[in-house]
């Protein structure tokens, strides 16, 4: 009897909740005076097996500077970074806390392997926009509520394919992929797009590399197939192992092109002479280029605030910068609706750190960063090979 009564009470409570719209899309603090802070959120992997702390740290540096200079119309930005711990349940919880409980007006500088995949429908439902600092999983590029500032692994791969076949003019281009989660189709889209654009086909398309695989059989396979350019999407340790095996097996005369992931100082150090000639694709103005004028503000800010100089940091900086500029342009009270409206009607924004303008707008999916700069390891340092942006002329479906 008690059990069934409890059930009735529970279902009544559920009904009430649904009827009053106390669901997920509600914004708690409707009236915000000039004294209140502007709450901006982020859902990033700060702990767990793969972490991306630099993006939100860089975004925080931007917001702190804005606050020190008087904020937005006198209102300070309060930056709420939630840790998704690399765990889907924690990611869902983190997003609901930041958006529903804390009442963030927008999300900026998130960097996570699973935030988009888990939370994209929720963001769309809650009417909030996310200016993603680093989008990795395909959902980041396929949601009306999310527009990443970075290129992403798939367009990155398409740019590499284009660079290998059209700029380096190789006929035999080979692709080795480690497929994590649901990324195979997205990579497939990049390959199809490249084929449609150039009429060329891959000599080898091997998607069976695993993070803990010994790279030796794959490297030998590439050599046996006569590959002139080999594209690989390995993470930092995977790319290091790959290039060490290349050196060990004395494979020469092949151009090895990596995505953005291994473009780090740590990889340059760990590989040393073994990495000579390795290419990578920088999603933003290459951060290792000390003389670049485009990097001046970013570099000074990051150094002053002790944020590591990495590609992820560039993503966070850009996301925060785009948000601040948009917030400054809003007439009237800054609410979630106002911010979302501003981004849904945003005109493309140019920034010297990226090759193509940042877009949001009303589109159902966003992939505005369509350019990269190719860098190469020479003498243990990353050098910029293409001072001009390599813009991908095709589109991904």
């Amino acid at each position, binding site marked *: 009897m008690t059990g069934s009564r409890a059930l009735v009470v529970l279902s009544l409570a559920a009904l009430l909740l649904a009827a009053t719209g106390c669901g997920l899309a509600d914004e708690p603090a409707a009236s915000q005076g000039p004294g209140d802070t502007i709450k901006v959120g982020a859902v990033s992997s700060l702990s767990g097996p793969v972490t991306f702390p630099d993006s939100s740290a860089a975004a925080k540096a931007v917001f702190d500077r804005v606050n020190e200079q008087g904020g937005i119309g006198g209102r300070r930005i309060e930056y709420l970074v939630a840790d998704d711990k690399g765990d889907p349940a924690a990611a869902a919880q983190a997003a609901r806390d930041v958006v529903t409980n804390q009442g963030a007006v927008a999300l900026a500088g998130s960097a996570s392997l699973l935030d988009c995949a888990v939370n994209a429908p929720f963001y769309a439902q809650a009417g909030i926009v996310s200016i993603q600092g680093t989008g990795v999983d395909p959902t980041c590029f396929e949601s009306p509520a999310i527009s990443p500032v970075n290129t992403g692994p798939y367009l990155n791969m398409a740019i590499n394919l284009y660079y290998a076949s059209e700029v380096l003019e190789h006929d035999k281009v080979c692709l080795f992929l480690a497929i994590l989660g649901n990324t195979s189709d997205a990579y497939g889209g990049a390959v199809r797009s490249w084929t449609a654009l150039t009429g060329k086909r891959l000599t080898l398309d091997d998607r069976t590399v695993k993070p803990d695989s010994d790279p030796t059989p794959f490297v030998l396979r590439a050599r046996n197939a006569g590959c002139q350019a080999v594209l690989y999407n390995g993470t930092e340790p995977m790319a*290091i192992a790959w290039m060490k095996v290349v050196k*060990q097996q004395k494979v020469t005369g092949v151009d090895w092109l990596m995505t953005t992931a291994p473009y780090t100082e740590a990889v340059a150090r760990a590989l040393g002479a073994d990495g000579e000639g390795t290419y990578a694709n920088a999603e933003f103005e290459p951060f290792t280029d000390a003389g670049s004028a485009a990097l001046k503000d970013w570099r000074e800010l990051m150094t002053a605030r002790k944020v590591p100089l990495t590609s992820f940091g560039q993503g966070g900086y850009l996301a925060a910068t785009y948000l601040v500029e948009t917030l400054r342009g809003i007439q009237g009270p800054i609410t979630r609706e106002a911010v979302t409206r501003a981004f849904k009607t945003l005109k493309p924004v140019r920034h010297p750190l990226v090759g193509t303008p940042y877009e949001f707008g009303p589109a159902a999916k966003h992939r505005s960063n369509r350019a990269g700069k190719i860098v190469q390891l020479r003498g243990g340092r990353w050098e910029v090979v293409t001072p001009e942006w390599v813009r991908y002329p095709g589109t991904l479906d």
Partner: protein
Amino acid sequence: MLQGLLSGLAAGGTFAALGLLLTAMYRLTATVNLAVAAIGVAGVYVMAALTESGLPYGVAAAAGVAAGALLSAGCGAVMVRWFAAGDAQTRTAVSIAQLIGIIALAYILFGDTPRVLPNPASGAAAELAGVVITWATPALLALAALLGGGTHLLLTRTPLGLRLRAMAERPVTTELLGIGTRRPAVVLWAATGGLAALVLLLVAPVRSSDILSLSMLIVPACAAALVGGLTRLSGALLGGLALGLLEGVLAGSAALREYRDAVPFAAILLILMWTRRREVWDAAR
């Protein structure tokens, strides 16, 4: 085909050496020590931290091996002190906890930034069928053979081996007979930790060197040990080699390549079914 086999030789040596360590530990301490690869990884990262601080490789590597030994001795001390009377399942469960603990601790201490890992055996030992075999491969194979031979001698020819076996199989009886085995058991744990670090020092420079990937070398090592039923040293040696060679061959086969990583799991499953066949059939009758 030959090229595939040769390219899997180094992996085979690795699996065999780790599989033998598992087998030896099971026979001598009645524990399937699933943390053995992770202990080796800790040694590798200690070496990396020391070389980065400017120590020469030899000294840093020795310190890495010592760190592996020390960590393993710690794990062994826990096992001997609190789980001596526990059955194999309990002790294996404890080793899983130790595995997770070591991985978590290693991430906290060393982070996930790639390290500079000098390769002590990167020189070419031979070049066969277009595959360069580095010195790491014969070194691993020799290490595996030594491990197998050494454990066999320890078990069959020494009083210490006999005591350790007694301790592993009948811990309470052994203690009641007044045979103290705690200290030699901890020393044995330390030795296996040091050896695991040695294996990983040879392997880590040419594999994806993140903590998790390297610690998970325990999966093929388990498959290798299971080929010998966790008790036969020769089985673990041959099983490890066969798994490595199979992986190398399958990577070159267009049709079967996708299933390459399933090989250790399929092997474990088949071996378990084969070893359990009598129990099931007898029960059915």
